[in-house]
């Protein structure tokens, strides 16, 4: 889309086109699918700006937006400043500053830095291929597994003892404290038999 057309769309959204220019643009919107797509996206952005859309958007929304923005060069320093661009300078400056803040946060998400948590770890630097990421459907795979719950109490008791060791090394245990030990304490062969 040309920068002239972006200008026109922007002005149209701001009600700054005169009657004939508006009619001409509406005709173009009716006949140009790509332009209509831009129009719809601009309206969405404007709605977000006005807080008309919940910030909790569908997954992938932001990625799509970034992709689209990267394809649409933004002029931060227009050569001329016609009437309909009168706010572009200060707004663009503010926008750039805000964007840089956003990008900085994106690039450096907060990490807890308490001294008590500044621990060395033996985190593996061993590269292991990752299995494909399922978005869903593992439950059906899980259902297909033969979960042959052993009737041998010794097997279950053995796993229960291993769980005591596992609890100590489970990251979530930092939050849940002793609660996971309930599995050991509450283990009752009479009840847990399959």
């Amino acid at each position, binding site marked *: 889309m040309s920068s002239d057309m972006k200008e026109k769309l*922007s002005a149209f959204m701001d009600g700054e086109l005169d009657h004939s220019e508006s009619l001409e643009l509406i005709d173009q919107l009716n006949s140009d699918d790509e332009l209509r797509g831009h129009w719809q996206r601009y309206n969405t*952005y*404007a709605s977000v700006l006005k807080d008309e859309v919940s*910030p909790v*958007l569908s997954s992938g929304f*932001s990625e799509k937006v*970034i992709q689209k923005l990267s394809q649409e060069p*933004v*002029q931060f320093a227009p050569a001329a400043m016609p009437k309909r661009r009168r706010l*572009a300078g200060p707004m663009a400056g*503010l*926008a750039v500053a*805000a*964007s840089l*803040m*956003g990008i900085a946060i*994106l690039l450096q*998400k*907060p990490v807890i830095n308490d001294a008590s*948590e500044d*621990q060395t*770890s*033996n985190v*593996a*630097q*061993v590269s*292991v*291929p*990752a*299995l494909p*990421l*399922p978005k869903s459907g593992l*439950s059906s795979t*899980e259902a297909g*597994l033969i979960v042959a*719950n*052993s009737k041998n109490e010794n*097997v279950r008791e053995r*796993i229960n003892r*291993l*769980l*005591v*060791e*596992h609890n*100590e*090394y489970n*990251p*979530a*245990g*930092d*939050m*849940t404290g*002793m*609660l996971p030990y*309930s599995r050991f*304490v*509450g283990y*009752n062969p009479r*009840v*847990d038999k399959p």
Partner: protein
Amino acid sequence: MKLAGHLLIAFSLLWLSYAWADEQSLALLKRMNQAAGNLDFDGVFLHVNGNNIETLRVIRKIQNGKVLERLYSLNGNPREVIRDAERVWCFMPERKMGHVGMRADKQTGFPGFMASNLDKLTENYILSTGDFERVADRNAVHIQILPRDAYRYGYEMWADKETGLLLKSVLVDQQKNAIEQYMFAIVNIGLNIPDSDLQPMTSKDELEWHNDKKPPEMIPVGDSPWQFNSLPAGYDLINVLQRAMPMGEQQLEHMILSDGLAGVSVFIEKINKPSDVSMEKMGAVNAYSRSVDGNLITVVGEVPAAVVKLIGEALTRKH
């Protein structure tokens, strides 16, 4: 170009809102973590696990700067666990046995949840905070840590507004189905707790005690004779320990994997005869076992059954 400016601000605000949501959630989780370490409390809670409901009591007291905790069931076998900063005592009176294990060395070994990088956590989970709700007659804030895929479970948590203590925790799958729940029914925070409440109901003298002869020894990950050909997305091998089998003499290799929140343990021990492949489901915990080259591999974790199976099948001996 007013629109371009608007757009950039809109996206910046969006990103900021995401970052703030993460930060807010993390701040609450951090507070919960501190509460788990710094508060005295005495409470009765429910553990709902499939069709089983257990009622348990947990007591925690800081005495001369040292933490003492006691957990026991109010029904059935009078098993209990007593824990201090260094050791965990497991009482099994129905078997006339007890076991003393060493606690994970958080200073030099396992990094723990709150030391994890937020990037790692948010790669695999979506963090958000919700409204205040009432749990155990206290005001609690709702925190969600939901899985981004089917390779892990998530948590819905309710933390005490005043102190940050975790009052309710629900382990959920990707569809938010509850798998396991802990919920305080009554909890007293900050009250004076008599020392007698931290004494076991079964005398230590009545049990045959098995002790860890020495603390688990951490070995460099690359030095392990075992390796994974592949892992479910998001999981990394973070530690390898050599230790004794709890309540046994047998030496084990204990490999610990994590995705930033969920932990999976892989135990490897020598056996005399091959064992059948088996899958066990014990509430939220899934376990998978198989034999490899005269060793029994057991994978356990609060993760979907398919995950323990995938991890167990991917383990091979280095050549």
